[in-house]
């Protein structure tokens, strides 16, 4: 039942009905309280602007300006004609005494006619959105309803003023002033709107640093335009409309993609909320006790409205067709006259009438409601079937193809050229003029990335390229992994597009041509160094990315952190890559993967296939595997040993820190790590870094440590593996060493408290000092990584407290290791206790 109901009745009708029901309930429940939620103030200040802004912002500019002449003809001449005709007719009938409501002063009738004759944008939008008539018809009716606001406002105020000063008499001057007022109101509103539109464009040029509040500028500034116009008694509707029309192009060029989505949906949400509220309130406001029903007046008003609307449309289209390239047909004329819906604007205006000055106000209100109901219900419901019966060309919504874009552009230029040859200055000529001006002066000034003359072509192109890419990913997600590694992403898209568009015929040709889908694409030819670097980076990134921390880290008042998603994906991706690396060690890998998968389950949805594929694709490059295998080669032996042997944990200088450091250091240190795991020669960093140089000699024996940190007794450590000193060691059998540091780093946003002991592998005795103890205060076991033997006495906080509040990872590490070294030196000299703690790896 429900879907059928909404098919038959437009939304606006149903909303009014709901409103009436609510109104009836309210009146019965609350007794005699007069409910009028729809006051003119709320309507004009809060509800109307969002709808108009939405209309202006999403107005098809070109269409609008192509038909501006026709639209203006209807909006200005048509509305004035309707007002005068309806007013005069009502007054004439009133003279016969048919209404039996006493005196019907002509000015009151004109006042009423002024508010009742205007086509209402809200009602038109509500109905025309649903019937999908062709765009020309839509733009003419809708444009008229927007632009006639100026006329309505002026006529309304003019007649209001006249009817108030009818005692003193109206002189010709007043009439002239009224006409002049029209131009002031209309042009003033437009100018204010354009001004604010340009201002908005200019502001958004600088909002790229504050993406989160970017969308608000559009709304606030458009509303400012509205208020500004209203303050000066200009047409607010015109101001907002033109503000939206003006700002659109520049704003769209400046804001980010996400802001664009935000703007779009917020605007649509606001406007449809307003629309809903307006129609419901209209229904609620119907139910009150101030009505003064006058059958003849109501009937005649409806008749006059319909008849004069039809007459006006017929006469004016005949006039317009003389100057139009595509003629408005009879059917279109009919839809135009039938689509002249009245709505809430009229109702709000009628509420504004002062009853003391105009005694017929209650009757006007009742009649207005009746007319609104008639147009919204009767015409609104019947227009849909009528459009079908009359076979009105309906619009088809679609995205332009590349060909259409380019060829239509060409036709534009061609027609401009022909107009110039003919010496006629028509539409094309004016548009071309404006475009040239726009490109030369306005765009460079308002746009952050000025892209050149034809942004639309580029836009279409990137949209299409994007769509191809998405399509490809969606359909072929499972095959990505099978694509040979030599292919770049653009190569994939290339093939896909080719296959998609014209079958398999042109594959080979395409491959030979240097077709490039991705406009930004760089051919990525990584050197070995880059690859190594990238690999370590990825490993680190994986370790870094403990999904738990996302919320906290990403919280920022002024920015939306978009990394959340990507890091999670990376997490899995890199995990897969890792699996590739550690392929030879099944058992390690299995164990580890279990753990990781657990993590994955807890924290985010993972797409194993997809990421697997991605990984495979990414790393099936020849040189990548070469690099990977190189790295693997030396490791197994040492790791095997290491795996089983208990690890002694001493305070020594170590390489862990370097290996953990972010990219720059990492690259250089990686080589040295490899070496030092096998050979005991000091690495470059060891000799370079001051504190390391210092204890080079002294620390050949394991250092003692008098006190142990709180974590030392923490049983939770047992659940994890102890880290290995070298990065590759960690890579092979245990990732925790690196994890710990960063996890801690992020988990405890305050004091980063960690003890990372990185015992040098089984070689520690021979190789001398190589471990780092990093101890910080607060959290006893931030790492969840280290294991230690229970023999180690638990003591209070260690004396070695590095500078707290180290936010930068590298800084803190350096600092910490420095401290450690210092303290350990002291320890060695003073107590010589020779305490070692052995960390056993639990498997």
């Amino acid at each position, binding site marked *: 039942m429900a879907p059928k109901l909404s098919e038959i009745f437009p939304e606006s009708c149903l909303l009014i009905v709901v409103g009436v029901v609510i109104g009836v309930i309210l009146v019965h429940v609350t007794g005699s309280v007069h409910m009028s939620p729809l006051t003119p103030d709320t309507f004009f200040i809060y509800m109307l602007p969002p709808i108009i802004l939405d209309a202006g912002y999403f107005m098809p500019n070109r269409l609008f300006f192509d038909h501006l002449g026709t639209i203006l003809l209807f909006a200005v001449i048509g509305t004035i004609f309707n007002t005068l005709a309806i007013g005069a007719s009502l007054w004439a009938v009133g003279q016969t005494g048919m209404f039996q409501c006493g005196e019907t002063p002509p000015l009151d009738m004109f006042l009423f006619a002024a508010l009742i004759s205007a086509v209402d944008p809200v009602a038109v939008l509500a109905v025309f959105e649903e019937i999908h008539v062709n765009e020309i018809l839509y733009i003419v009716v809708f444009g008229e309803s927007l632009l006639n606001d100026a006329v309505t406002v002026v006529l309304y105020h003019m007649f209001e003023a006249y009817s108030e000063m009818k005692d003193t008499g109206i002189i010709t001057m007043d009439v002239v002033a009224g006409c002049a007022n029209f131009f002031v109101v209309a042009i003033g509103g437009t100018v204010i709107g354009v001004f604010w539109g340009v201002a908005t464009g200019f502001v958004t040029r600088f909002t790229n640093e504050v993406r989160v509040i970017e969308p608000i500028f559009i709304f606030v500034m458009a509303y400012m335009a509205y208020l500004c116009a209203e303050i000066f008694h200009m047409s607010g509707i015109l101001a907002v409309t033109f503000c939206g029309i003006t700002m659109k192009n520049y704003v769209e060029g400046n804001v980010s993609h996400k802001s664009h989505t935000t703007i779009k949906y917020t605007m649509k949400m606001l406007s449809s909320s307003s629309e809903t509220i307006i129609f419901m309130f209209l229904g609620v406001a119907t139910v009150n006790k101030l009505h003064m029903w006058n059958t003849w007046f109501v009937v005649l008003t409806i008749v006059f409205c319909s008849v004069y609307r039809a007459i006006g449309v017929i006469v004016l289209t005949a006039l317009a067709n003389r*100057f*139009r*390239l*595509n003629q408005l047909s009879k059917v279109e004329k009919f839809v135009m006259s039938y689509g002249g819906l009245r709505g809430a604007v009229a109702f709000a205006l009628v509420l504004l009438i002062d009853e003391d000055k105009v005694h017929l106000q209650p009757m006007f209100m009742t009649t207005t409601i009746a007319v609104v109901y008639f147009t919204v219900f009767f015409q609104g419901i019947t227009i849909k079937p009528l459009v079908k019966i009359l076979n009105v060309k309906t619009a*088809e919504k*679609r995205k332009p*193809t*590349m*060909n*259409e874009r*380019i*060829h*239509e*552009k*060409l*036709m*534009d*230029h*061609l*027609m*401009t*050229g*022909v*107009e*110039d*040859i*003919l*010496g*006629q200055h*028509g539409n*094309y*000529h004016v548009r*071309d003029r404006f475009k*040239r001006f726009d490109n030369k002066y306005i765009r460079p000034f308002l746009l952050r990335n*000025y*892209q*050149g*003359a*034809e942004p639309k*072509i*580029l836009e279409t*192109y990137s949209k*299409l*390229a994007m769509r191809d890419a998405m399509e490809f990913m969606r359909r072929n997600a499972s095959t990505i992994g099978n694509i040979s590694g030599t292919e770049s992403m653009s190569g994939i898209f290339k093939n896909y*597009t*080719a296959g998609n*568009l*014209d*079958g398999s*015929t*042109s594959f080979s*040709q*395409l491959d030979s*041509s*240097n*077709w*490039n*889908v991705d*406009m930004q694409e760089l051919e990525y030819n990584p050197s070995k160094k880059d690859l190594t670097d990238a690999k370590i980076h990825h490993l680190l990134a994986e370790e870094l990315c403990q999904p738990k921390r996302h919320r906290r880290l990403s919280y920022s008042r002024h920015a939306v952190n978009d990394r959340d998603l990507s890091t999670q994906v990376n997490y899995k991706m890199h995990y897969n890559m890792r699996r590739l690396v550690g392929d030879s060690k099944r058992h390690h890998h299995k164990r580890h993967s279990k753990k990781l998968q657990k993590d994955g389950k807890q924290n985010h949805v993972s797409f194993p296939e997809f990421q697997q594929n991605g990984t495979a694709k990414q790393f099936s490059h020849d040189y990548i595997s070469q690099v990977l295998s190189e790295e693997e080669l030396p490791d197994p032996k040492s790791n095997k040993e290491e795996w089983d042997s208990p690890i002694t944990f001493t305070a020594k200088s170590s390489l862990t820190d370097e290996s953990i450091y972010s990219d720059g250091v990492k690259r250089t240190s990686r080589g040295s790590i490899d070496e030092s795991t096998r050979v005991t020669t000091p690495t470059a960093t060891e000799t370079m870094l001051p504190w390391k140089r210092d204890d080079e000699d002294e620390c050949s024996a394991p250092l003692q440590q008098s006190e142990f940190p709180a974590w030392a007794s923490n049983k939770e450590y047992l659940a994890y593996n102890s880290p290995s000193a070298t990065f590759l060691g960690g890579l092979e059998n245990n990732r925790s060493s690196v994890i710990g540091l960063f996890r801690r780093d992020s988990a405890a946003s305050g004091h980063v408290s960690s003890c990372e002991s990185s015992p040098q592998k089984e070689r520690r005795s021979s190789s001398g000092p190589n471990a780092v103890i990093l101890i910080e205060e607060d959290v006893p076991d931030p790492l969840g990584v280290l294991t230690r033997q229970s023999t180690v006495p638990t003591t209070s906080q260690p004396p070695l407290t590095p500078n707290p509040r180290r936010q930068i990872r590298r800084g803190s590490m350096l600092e910490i290791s420095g401290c450690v070294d210092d303290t350990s030196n002291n320890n060695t000299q003073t107590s010589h206790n020779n305490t070692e703690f052995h960390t056993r790896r639990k498997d």
Partner: protein
Amino acid sequence: MGNRSSLLLREEEIAQIQQESGFTPNQIERLYSRFTSLDRGDCGTLSREDFLRIPELAINPLGERIVNSFFQGDIYNDRVNFRQFMNVLAHFRPVKKNKDNKLNSREAKLKFAFKMYDLDNDDLISRDELLAILHMMVGANISEEQLTSIAERTILEADEDGDQMISFEEFCKALQRTDVEQKMSIRFLN
């Protein structure tokens, strides 16, 4: 000048042009006066330079191509007379339903646009021809690779027989949903 030019145009000439192109006599006279005002040398024909002397046309990115299309019929002749001029312009007359239109049918309009691309007259738009047009329209701000990929994407989209060219049939098909009749029409003043 207007008067003089209309005097120079003989009745039978008007009738012939009217028959060929479908313009009304009023339009023909009007266009003839425009023609003569463009014709600086008063020799009854227009050269490319005469066209390009129109300031707006000179800065039209496709100005030269548009002028070129007036000289389509005869490659050796570098001047166009009034009849040829009118026949070219007849392409842009609005389509009237009940009349039999030869020059301003949808197909004729499309053909005209197609010819704008097709420099070498082989009835195919190649990648380079499309690229040349894109160059003119989009200008210098966009890199060569981008333009190339746009051109290739466009050809790929329209190309149906896989020859990496857009034939006229493919061109028409690509613009199937475009209101060419309206887009390539102009309201000639009377």
